[in-house]
């Protein structure tokens, strides 16, 4: 199927990892759905920016580290990454604090991004 014909799906991460399971399940969705002829993007918004911060160590919680899988997502046909600028700023974070380098977008760009997608999946 051509890229033009593929439906665009945006996973929006708005929850921090570990406190809830949303980020982990959003990641599973990205890992699986890339195999199904969908044009996948992921946007990190609000506490969702904490999903991809460096130095996560949930060893004592006996759960998988969430951030470490994101750099591998292009191998799973996920190629578009976005982060909301204000969400980074509010949390005192910069791109240097993240394990990947998403495109930094403002709120208007995020709203425009929603418009481009056939489905928005909240996690």
């Amino acid at each position: 199927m051509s890229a033009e014909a593929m439906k665009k799906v945006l996973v929006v991460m708005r929850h921090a990892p570990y406190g809830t399971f949303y980020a982990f399940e959003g990641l599973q969705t990205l890992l699986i759905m890339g195999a199904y002829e969908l044009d996948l993007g992921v946007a990190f918004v609000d506490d969702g920016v904490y999903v991809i911060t460096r130095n996560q160590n949930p060893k004592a919680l006996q759960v998988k580290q969430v951030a470490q899988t994101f750099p591998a997502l292009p191998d799973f046909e996920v190629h578009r990454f976005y982060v909301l600028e204000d969400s980074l700023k509010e949390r005192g974070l910069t791109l240097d604090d993240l394990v990947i380098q998403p495109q930094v977008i403002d709120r208007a760009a995020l709203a425009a991004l929603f418009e481009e997608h056939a489905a928005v999946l909240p996690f």
Partner: protein
Amino acid sequence: MLYTVNKSPFASPNLERCLQVAPAGSPILLYEDGVYAAAAGTAFEERLHAALQAHPIYALQSDLEARGLSNLVEGVRVITYEDFVDLVIEHNVVPWL
């Protein structure tokens, strides 16, 4: 896009965050605990008034009734699930959970 919010504005910043992103003109649907934002006489009323200048704001009737909310901020449109379906047909959805 139709932005849907299901949390009370007193318990969650979701509605505020959603209002910061939703472009002027985008409809906003309040449902579940989101309908508390539509109640008149609360500390959020002024914020909702301002939001109503930029957005059509809808609140789900059955969720309002369940919570005993009938005195609503002027301009909020009360709708049924059938109307909710029509809104989704007209606009794709951004669920702001």
